[in-house]
């Protein structure tokens, strides 16, 4: 398996071929991205074996959804990550029992299962090149501007897939308080990211909004 993170443009080329039902390209796409998607999934479900089952479901979905993928749906890696996270979230939500790590995240032996990484940390992560460092830097800057409690709530929800109730339990705060932290944190994040968005990314989505708005 290739140890170098894939370049965004090479993922785009692979996605195009996968959309044309090219099995060899699908294998290359898997080789280039599976370890990153599994990293995201295992972080959320805290179980490697279960994580591999979810990864399998994610790539089967990727194969079937690929003909409907277009660049308007975002960068290929963003689209792949979103599918992996949604599969992990669906798997987590289907298990009714509370997860042990929610209240005692540091109890896990594996360091990766510990506290959520600080998303505002200046040091770049292993996938930085793939998601395009400019995007990661913009997000980091905006996360730094949030209150610490808002940032922590968003990080725990994103990395560990915690629900509002699980966040309240983990952060030892009333449910209403953590809900407000998440809501206000996301709102401030949106305002900050939109202020700093590159001009070219806006019209595409605005045009899409205009198109769909006319149809309704």
């Amino acid at each position, binding site marked *: *398996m290739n140890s170098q993170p894939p370049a965004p443009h090479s993922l*785009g*080329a692979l996605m*195009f*071929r996968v*959309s*044309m*039902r*090219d*099995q060899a390209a699908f*294998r290359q796409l*898997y080789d280039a991205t*599976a*370890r990153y998607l*599994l*990293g995201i999934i295992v*972080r959320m479900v805290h179980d490697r074996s279960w*994580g*591999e089952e979810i990864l399998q479901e994610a*790539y*089967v979905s990727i*194969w079937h959804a690929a*003909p*409907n*993928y*277009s*660049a*308007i749906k975002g*960068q290929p*890696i*963003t*689209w792949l990550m*979103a599918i992996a996270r949604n599969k992990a*979230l*669906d798997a987590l*939500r289907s298990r009714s029992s509370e997860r042990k790590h929610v209240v005692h995240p540091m109890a896990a032996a594996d360091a990766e299962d510990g506290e959520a990484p*600080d*998303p505002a*940390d200046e040091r*770049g992560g*292993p*996938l930085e090149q*793939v*998601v395009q460092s400019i*995007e*990661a830097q913009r*997000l980091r800057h905006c*996360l730094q501007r949030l209150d610490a409690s808002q940032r922590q709530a968003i990080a725990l*929800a*994103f990395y560990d897939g915690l*629900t509002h109730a699980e966040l309240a339990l983990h952060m030892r705060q009333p449910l209403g308080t953590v809900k407000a932290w*998440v809501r206000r944190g*996301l*709102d401030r994040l949106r305002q900050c990211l939109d202020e700093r968005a590159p001009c070219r990314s806006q019209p*595409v*989505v605005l*045009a*899409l*909004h205009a*198109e769909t708005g006319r149809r309704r």
Partner: protein
Amino acid sequence: MNYGRPELRERLASEYVLGTLHGRARPRFQQLMRADPELQARVVFWEQRLMPMAARLSAAAPSAKVWQAIAARVAPREQAVQVRPGGLLRGLAHWFDLRAFGSVAAGLFVGVAVTLMAPRLLDRDAADVAESQLPQSYVGVLATADGRTGLIVSSLRHGKVMDVKHVLRVPVATGHMLYLWSIDAEGNTRPIGPVPQGSFVQVPLSETSEKLFGKATELALSIEPVNSAPVQPSGAFVYRGLCGKLWRVRTPQNR
């Protein structure tokens, strides 16, 4: 709950992507999103905003059995045109142009189609051309992944017949047929109908070309079981390519 309120839609989209929608709220939102392209666009926007957070996480190499299980589940069910891995640039140029193309989806003609079908138009100042050289038509040029033209489709504006020229021959197994699809700017796939074999065939349309091709930004061809009425492609797109309107669309400046 009034799902028409923009601030509520924005909050639901952001919390769906973050993952904090739970209980019945999550499947309810997913169901809502399926029939609501504007909501889908908000979700895509939030995915672009939040996914860079995952860049901080460690990678974890999956065991070999994961790929084996995936490969077994996506094995091809029918023969498709062989796609060569090299020479992708032309095809990719079409595909990625969708980003810009989406913003003018209701607009002008497609460069590829014009280049192939009416090269003289490119040599003239559009303002000097009172009428186009070809009748007002929808035109689609479908290609393999490496950019080889496979199929050319055209239909008169308001027409109920389409012309189909097979440039490459597609091997189709017994009991199967070629099937044409339209793809709109949001990537939604809709069936158009079966395409008979033959170097140049005329195919009656079930509805007017306006209805079938009006919102299409792309066309694609798959192989489906004979006599089936598929609502989604069963697997293989053998060709895919841009579709456009080959007529002059007046802009506010030249009115």
